[in-house]
């Protein structure tokens, strides 16, 4: 097996998640695809980097992903209670 196999898998996952993020309008689904993009980047980091260092960075990225999901979902719940919608296209003003 060459390094190309895990790299190819992570790049494919990243591209599909990016397609989902760019095409769907629902905020929760967009955040889900964002998490999957981060997950794909993590796979590339672990598979392609030098072993102990890349895995250390991957552990740190896990914590960043958890923090991002927490803040993102809190924002989404607040937006849903203010605008009564989760479609990104229907939210057109910044003042809540």
């Amino acid at each position, binding site marked *: *097996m*060459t*390094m*190309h*196999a*895990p*790299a190819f*898998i992570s*790049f*494919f*996952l*990243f*591209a599909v998640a*990016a*397609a*989902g*993020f*760019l*095409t*769907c309008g*629902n905020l*929760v*689904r967009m955040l*889900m*695809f964002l*998490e*999957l993009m981060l*997950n794909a980047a*993590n*796979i590339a980091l*672990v*598979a392609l980097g030098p*072993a*102990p*260092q890349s*895995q*250390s960075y*991957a*552990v*740190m990225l*896990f*914590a960043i*992903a*958890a*923090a*991002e*999901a*927490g*803040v993102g*979902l*809190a924002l989404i*719940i*607040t937006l849903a*209670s*203010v605008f*009564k*919608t*989760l*479609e990104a296209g*229907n939210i057109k003003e910044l003042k809540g």
Partner: protein
Amino acid sequence: MIVAASVYIFGAIAAAATLLMLFQRNPVKAALLMLTALLATAGLYLAISAQLLAVLQVILYAGAIMTLFIVALAVTPEAWHDKPSPARLKQVLGLAAAAIIYMELVKVSAALRAVPVSREFRDAGTLDLARQLFGPFAFQFELLSLVILASIVAAVTLGMRRKANQ
């Protein structure tokens, strides 16, 4: 041989689940497909002998983050009734952008076809990872607690504002 087969199988499961998520309209089914993709990724980590990362993937991603998503879907009934906007142009542009990203990444990774999997890729153990985290990366690792604290404060502040508005 077994390692290569596991990488391909878990990679295919993750790719299929992510692809199916694109076409799934029901948010809970989409969340379950995401869970499948995350668990397949944990299997992938196990195959490339990153055992600690596989365990953390199951606990953090498939456990904590997925629970957050399910709770968010449960408390926002708006997510179930929204009609998707019929913006065809946006979808076409999004798919084109993703295709360009994919083609560029594949072009860049073509050089990796000649690089065999390194030895340390197979031999990396949890002890080495722990030595790194509590040795050279100790400061960065501790700094992460501040990041998580800041995110907790942000989430609680947003929740309190929502309660005050109601």
